[in-house]
């Protein structure tokens, strides 16, 4: 009887035991190495920066886990007025930067083109004309249900209407080290479009833990409102929701506007207010 019982258990375990094996009856999807180009341009940014790397096909013996940066490509930025500049590779930043007085200006259209090893990738962006200003910021500090210190920050602005506007509200908490060096971390980030709210008052509400040790005079929060083009908005919105592959959710394909490769060339305007909660 004991043996019979063991057989039962073995059969049931066998029945529900899954089997892991190599797939031989179909070919895995094929992919080639492609140029990957990223640039986020802004008149408010300190420099023009573009990053160029290679993608790695997942099947085969390609290197994964290490970014295959390309350092000796030709990367050119140009605008529709015929002005252009060749960006130079900075090995420290692992990115291409302009070395001249070439400027990003509101309302203008820019193209970045990268050429390497017979491959060409290019992307185009039109910089938003307006940098929508933050109207007011409401701050509310309170104690959460578990006794923790919390903060709620409401950023308000007026949508200009008469066109599609894409926004990103971004808040960072800035702290200082003993030597006075500043460092910051992200508190909240939200992507909002004016779809259905054209010309109306808009806001973004951020709720977060807030550590208050009594020395708040040295702690500040930077509140940014970015007015972006659609490429910046769609790419970053999807990108922050990417957590890798899991069997319980549909993959998040990344937004791209680069022709001949992968990546995004996009632009934004930025306004900023500093608060001391």
């Amino acid at each position: 009887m004991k043996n019979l019982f063991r057989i039962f258990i073995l059969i049931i375990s066998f029945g529900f035991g899954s089997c892991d094996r190599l797939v031989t009856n179909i070919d895995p999807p094929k992919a080639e190495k492609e140029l990957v180009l990223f640039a986020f341009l802004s008149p408010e940014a300190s420099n023009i920066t573009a990053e160029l790397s290679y993608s790695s096909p997942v099947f085969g013996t390609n290197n994964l886990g290490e970014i295959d940066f390309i350092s000796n490509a030709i990367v050119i930025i140009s605008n529709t007025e015929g002005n252009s500049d060749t960006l130079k590779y900075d090995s420290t930043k692992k990115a291409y930067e302009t070395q001249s007085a070439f400027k990003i200006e509101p309302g203008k259209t820019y193209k970045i083109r990268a050429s390497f090893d017979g491959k060409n990738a290019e992307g185009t962006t039109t910089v938003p004309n307006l940098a929508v200003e933050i109207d007011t910021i409401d701050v509310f500090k309170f104690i959460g249900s578990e006794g923790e210190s919390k903060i709620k920050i409401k950023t308000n602005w007026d949508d200009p209407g008469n066109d599609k506007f894409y926004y990103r509200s971004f808040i960072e908490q800035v702290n200082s080290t003993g030597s006075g060096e500043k460092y910051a971390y992200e508190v909240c980030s939200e992507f909002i479009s004016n779809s259905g709210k054209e010309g109306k008052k808009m806001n973004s509400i951020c709720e977060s833990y807030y550590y208050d040790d009594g020395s708040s005079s040295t702690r500040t929060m930077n509140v940014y409102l970015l007015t972006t083009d659609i490429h910046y908005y769609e790419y970053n919105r999807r990108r922050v929701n990417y957590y890798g592959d899991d069997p319980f959710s549909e993959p998040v394909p990344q937004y791209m506007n680069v022709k001949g490769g992968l990546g995004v060339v996009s632009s934004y305007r930025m306004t900023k207010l500093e608060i001391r909660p």
Partner: protein
Amino acid sequence: MKNTNRTIFFFITVLFWSIAGFSQEKVKHTISGYVKEKGSGELLPGASVAIPRLKTGTVTNNYGFFSITIPSDSIEILVSYVGYSPKAFRFNLNEDKELNIELETNKNLKELVVVSTKTYQKISDNSRMSTIEIPVHQIKEIPALLGEKDVLKVIQLLPGVQKGGEGNSGLYVRGGGPDQNLIMLDDAIVYNAFHLFGFFSLFNGDALKSIELTKGGFPSRYGGRLSSVLEMQMKDGDKETLHGEAGIGLLSSRLVLEGPIIKKKSSFLVSARRTYFDILTLPFQTSGEQVGYYFYDLNAKANYEIDDKNKLFLSGYLGRDKFYFKSSYGNGNTDIGKMSWGNATGTLRWNHLFNGRLFSNTSLVFSNYDFGIGQETDFDNQKYKLEYSSGIRDLSLKYDLDYRPSPMHTIKAGALFIRHTFTPSAVVYVDNFAGINENKKSQIGSWENAIYAEDDIKIGQRTKINAGLRVSHFVANKNNYVNLEPRVNALYMIKSDLSAKASYAVMNQYVHLLTNTGLGLPTDLWVPATDILKPQNSWQIAGGFAKDFIDKEVLLSIEGYYKESKNVISYKEGASFLEVTGDASAEQSENFNWEDNITAGRGWSYGAEFLLQKKAGKFSGWIGYTLSWTQLQYDELNFGKKFWARYDRRHDISLVGIWKIREMTDDRNGITLSGTWVYGTGNAITMPIAEYNSPVHNPGISSGNNFFGNYVSQYTGRGEFRMAPYHRMDLGLRITRKFNKYNRTVELSVYNLYNRFNPFFYYIGYEDSFGFGTSQKRVLKQVTLFPLIPSISYHIKF
């Protein structure tokens, strides 16, 4: 809308014309009554009542009632039902006549008795299309995984119905999702029809009398779902003698008991099943660590015949899955986790016969589905407890009238009122250490109502039309929706055994199911239509031919269909059911808004279905083939582009054969051999093809150099990669032996006979299983759930 109005106008015109026609006919009388099984008194739905000389007839309704009104004359009436010996009656009809008929099952007849008249029921003269009845006895004869008979798995073998994945009982009918099927047990909606993560369904056939699947051309009495109606009736119970059936298998044991409460007047049926994997594994567990899983089903039904005109039926289902673990650390310190889900339904029905032509049924129905997950820790007298639950509860009242004024008309009308109570989340959170004791519950109430009328009209000798209109209404959170749903089925008899059929139906669905796309997990969350998530809507047209090979008792059906749906829902990219229902944080559960994770889109499905079926005889079974295409489009998914649905299946083939090698007699074993073979095009999935650095841009100081390097996957387009085709063969052998007081059946079955490694899911792994590092070759790997699995089960019937 223009098309809808035209259809409604057409329906009203036809109805008026035909009613005007029959009102001018000469004096007639009505024959009415019930068709029952001899001995048990079990009412037989769908039995054929024919008057051959007049070339007319009818079928019994769900309660075994029939009524036919014909001119006074000397007539012969022939009553038949699949699996039963037919009966014929001759009499002179000069007044209304009540005729209660008892049919004897074929198996009760001596072998030498020759059944002179075939019991075959024609498909070619049935005005409804896209409807398939499954004889319950076939469910028991078809081999099943671990010997667990499963109604939904048999339905997956029918053309037009696809399964989701290996072992999954979910139904994908004509491109629709599993949430779009109305599964009804004695008028009660069953919201989650699965056990053990979808590997088994609630229905093993023990307590069932009839099973009917409607894939399109829905009569107006059905509504509330877009893709199919699966209607199951429970047995009433034997009114004459007490008998039962017991079975033991590798996974579960079961018991069915039925018998009279008051002989010939009242009877009962109880059916129970429970798995015992938890009990079998108990000796292998320590007292400090215990883990277990089990599920059970309990069906019960009782009926009472008050008088010739009134019958009462009370039926119910209770089923639950439970998974638990308990860790004990001594000194009373424990850690307990549990997950549980289940359905409960109850139906009280009153059949009332106003007269020989007018029958009514009133149903009061309760249905509940709930899911709960929780953890409780006791440590040093400090208690931490977090429980999350969700569910849906219905209380409904249904009234149906069945009026049969003449053989040319069968009119059905009725009303339905459902009070839904949705509980998207209920959280209990106790933390003695933090001084927290919270009990939060969100509930949404709604009303789903409908009225309908339909008429099965015979026009001349060649044309039949089933035309109807359903008006559906839904209200939740001050959102009111009213929709007209016209339905038409038409049949034209080309020859006495060949007909052409066509149908058109509009459907609306007011409840949405949030479910993950892959596994049949119990975290399904039903939510109402809102002002943001509109009701799902579809229209479907179908056309085809039905042919009877009467001598061979074989039917052939070929149908083509086209279906368009809108407001069908899906999770947004990256959204996970874990965020929706399985969150372990009380705060996040409280703040969660499910509407934020859902998006609505459109669907297109079209294809052709072929069915060659033999329902009875020494050799029975069917050949089914489906050729289909299903595409979806959501503004927020796949960059707004159309994509193939995960369960888009170009080819789907099923072969089912049941061969009764030898009938059981007093001195000889009965032997039945059965087999199935299925083939399906692989699921359309999205696969990663490359990885690349994809920085998130952050402004300000926190951005550093404005780049946060991170790898992301580059994918194929959504649904652009096809998994390997699925195919499998199962075999079953039943040996039945007769003893003095009982029959014994031993069943041997083999699931996946040729040990096909069908993919459950794919992942990217290393060619060398133990390889690790950046230079190893990465390959596509798959996980297979069920290799060849033999099983044995033992049943007795007394």
